[in-house]
């Protein structure tokens, strides 16, 4: 239903690109690293959404996760910035051409430890971007120290037991009035892919907290951040799919009364299929409630936790001209010569 073109070596999508056109250089991550499986779903999502690679811009901080943007969308622009300070970099750049899609990749250390401040303020501004946290509950690149999302009481190689409660990325995003908050698990590639598609089509900031096991430094079964632990504790809120504009929703695919739709600005929809209890992703109150409950019960809740598709995004608030700012020419930028008198008159 979602895929339009049969996959295969030479298959192309609606804009004539193959999956290979969405790939990057050879990965140097450890074999089995969750980050790579997310990278693959980014490739798939962009391929299926028929995105022009040049119209996607990648940003990242520093970490194994933040290295991963080289492994997808090799034709796209990207900027691998500073540890914990990617949001500001992406925010500034976003003003240059508001028609591009921003795909930001960060790690749990990059976002929740050093990056907490910038992350929160980026959410608060509803900066139009997809913000993926590849959350492995550990510092991969610096070899295994705990991060701010490591669960309390986990024993790490050289650092003893973690002393503090973990930061909940989704709760933080929600508290900062993010308009699209979701959680997923690298071990659930289909959900990851559909959430990435929905996030790309969301008009404001879209946060994906994706549990992404670090097979080298933090894959203990006792942790929610491992493949086994994540699988064992996963509580999906719903089945999720992004349905683009042109697709008819074949209602047969869903039992009546069990689906919820979220209309997005591009005309597409997020379709949520009920699993277990009813969950309303439009309610911020319910979102706080489920996160608090999950925290208490040690659940890995996944799915679309909160969405507000209509809130103005950062660019809307600045009332920018339609031409991308970075294509404006001298005549748009430098006031005409007679205005120098106006300037001098101000100095009296």
């Amino acid at each position: 239903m979602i895929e339009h073109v049969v996959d295969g070596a030479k298959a192309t999508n609606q804009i004539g690109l193959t999956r290979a056109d969405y790939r990057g250089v050879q990965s140097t991550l450890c074999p089995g690293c969750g980050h790579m499986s997310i990278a693959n779903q980014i490739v798939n999502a962009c391929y299926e959404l028929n995105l022009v690679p040049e119209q996607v811009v990648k940003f990242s901080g520093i970490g194994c996760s933040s290295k991963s943007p080289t492994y997808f969308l090799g034709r796209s622009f990207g900027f691998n910035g500073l540890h914990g300070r990617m949001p500001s970099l992406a925010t500034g750049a976003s003003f240059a051409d508001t028609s591009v899609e921003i795909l930001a990749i960060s790690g749990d250390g990059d976002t929740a430890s050093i990056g907490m401040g910038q992350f929160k303020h980026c959410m608060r501004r509803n900066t139009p971007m997809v913000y993926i946290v590849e959350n492995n509950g550990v510092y991969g690149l610096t070899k295994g120290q705990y991060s701010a999302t490591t669960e309390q009481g986990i024993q790490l190689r050289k650092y003893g037991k973690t002393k503090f409660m973990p930061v909940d990325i989704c709760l933080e995003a929600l508290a900062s009035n993010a308009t699209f908050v979701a959680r997923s698990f690298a071990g659930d590639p289909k959900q990851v892919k559909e959430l990435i598609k929905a996030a790309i089509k969301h008009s404001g900031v879209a946060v994906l907290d994706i549990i992404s096991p670090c097979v080298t430094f933090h894959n203990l079964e006792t942790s929610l951040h491992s493949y086994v632990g994540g699988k064992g504790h996963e509580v999906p809120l719903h089945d999720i799919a992004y349905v683009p504009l042109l697709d008819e929703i074949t209602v047969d695919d869903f039992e009546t009364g069990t689906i919820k739709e979220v209309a997005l600005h591009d005309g597409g929809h997020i379709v949520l299929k009920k699993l277990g209890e009813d969950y309303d992703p439009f309610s911020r109150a319910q979102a706080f409630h489920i996160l608090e409950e999950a925290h208490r019960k040690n659940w890995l809740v996944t799915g679309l936790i909160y969405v507000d598709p209509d809130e103005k995004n950062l660019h809307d608030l600045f009332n920018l001209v339609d031409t991308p700012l970075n294509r404006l020419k001298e005549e748009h930028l430098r006031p005409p010569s007679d205005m120098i008198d106006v300037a001098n008159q101000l100095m009296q």
Partner: protein
Amino acid sequence: MEESIANAGVATSLGCSEVSREVVNDFSITFSTINGSGSATANLTIMRAIFKMGIPVSGKNIFPSNIKGLPTWFTIRLSKDGFLGYTEKSEIVVVMNPQTFARDLATVKPGGVIFYTDEYKGPIERGDVVAYPMPVKKLAKETDIPANLRDYIENVVYIGILAQMLGIDFERIYQAFETHFQGKKKAVDSNFEVVRRAAKWAEENLEKRDPYRVAPMNLTDGMILGSGNAAAALGSIFGGIQFSAWYPITPSSSIAESLNEYLPMFRKAADGKATYAVVQAEDEISAVGMTVGAGWAGLRAMTATSGPGLSLMAEYLGLAYYAEVPLVVWNVQRVGPSTGLPTRTAQGDVTFSYFISHGDTKYIILIPSTLKECFEFGWQSLDIAERFQTPVLVLSDLDLGMNYWISAPFEYPDRPMDRGKILWEEDLEKMIERCQGKWGRYLDVDGDGIPYRTVMGNRHPRSGYFARGTGHDDFGKYTELPEDWEKGMKRLALKFETARAVLPEPEIRTLQGAQIGIIAYGTTHDAVEEARYLLKKEGILTNYLRIRALPFSKEVSQFVERHQRVYVVELNFDGQMKQVLSAEMPMLAHKLRSVAKVDGMPFSAECIVRMLLSQEERP
């Protein structure tokens, strides 16, 4: 090079002013008031009126780090000879704050005058000063102004008294009010009325016993009066600024505030939409990060800050340097280290700025001295940043940024915007052809160290690249190979050398027969010119080079070479520019001597003379 000692294009002659009993247009007035009491309007009005009378004038605010209640001072200097630097003492002191009377009295020059609120009832312990009490409370009460504005009105009262006693033209005062109240007639008239009454009181009650007088001249015709931060904002606007992220910090905030105020006036798009964005960030790391992002993405981008903010920007500046991202950082210096004296001026961030961030970095630094240079460096810095694809730091200071300066008027940029080597779709296509298919973001195609760049949004399938602060080769690819790193460093050094030759050249002023050199920069300029005048009177001739940019052009080393010894005048403790000069010109370093101090006040000419002469005595 012509023989000259001149000040901001104002001074017309080097001759001594005639000595006479009457002192006309050649003295300073200091207003001692209480912070937050609204005295700024009064002080600016007097300054503007004098300016409009054609007399060269400057205004310096010495204010506390406080919102309301602490003492604050404002000094207006009038100088028919165009010497407008800081003076340690004033001929006339106006005391509105009874608490500071004793301290203020001590700052009156011998033979000077003190005007004071008659709330002060104590003794006046100096015989060499003329004292005029002012019944400001009483006169303020007599107006029909609401009681909550009385504090403010007391200040307007002293305008009237001073105008009467010094001969300030009332019509000019009226015009000054018009400027201040932006034509709001009611405010203008009611304020002017207070001035009139106060003047009348003075006329009737005070007998002139001092020699100081203001008389019309024509030395400010066509000139402008303002502060450097506003000029910086205007300059940036004429430079086509598109993005600024900033975080409030004294004394730089008024750059961003001026952008907010002026951008809508100067840059309305046809459809009323904006061609720019000014974002208040959550801190300086974010402010510079956004600015780097915008610069990378092809926007003309600037941020403004002061010391503590600059310290926070260190990491991002290193990234921008190495990833070759254009952006401009105005650093309006205040006294540090640390929070220091946040409302006092200094030139203390020179070495830190030059060496900022870990590893081998090199920055282009511009240093304006005048209002006009703030405007010029406003637009030129954006050109230079894009041309060299690198951070440009502009080192202003509180004195220049927030105080009042006169200058020749701003001139429209004399050349088109320089967007540097930026390639859009078709340019890129041509470049790829030119290089037979070989194209890389960091390739030195022209041999000047400056590569070509594409920016996001470019739809050419070969335009994209992955920028990074990690080691990269000519094509932007990650590399750890020793030869790649070395090659990159060498190209960056070459780029810096390329820049050296085209940055704003130093300004040199010479006197026939001078053997001694002076090097200075930024806001010590006025005091240096005046000091040279005073030294000349003592028979000591000096040549003067004013640095306007780092890296130094070869004129700087040639200047040092030509002189027996060179004094580097600067407003910091460590002699920081002398340190930089020594590091950059080790073969000449032995010729340099330091005239450096910092205490929160600008340099006065007397102080420079004193510090220089004490070293001239040394063998």
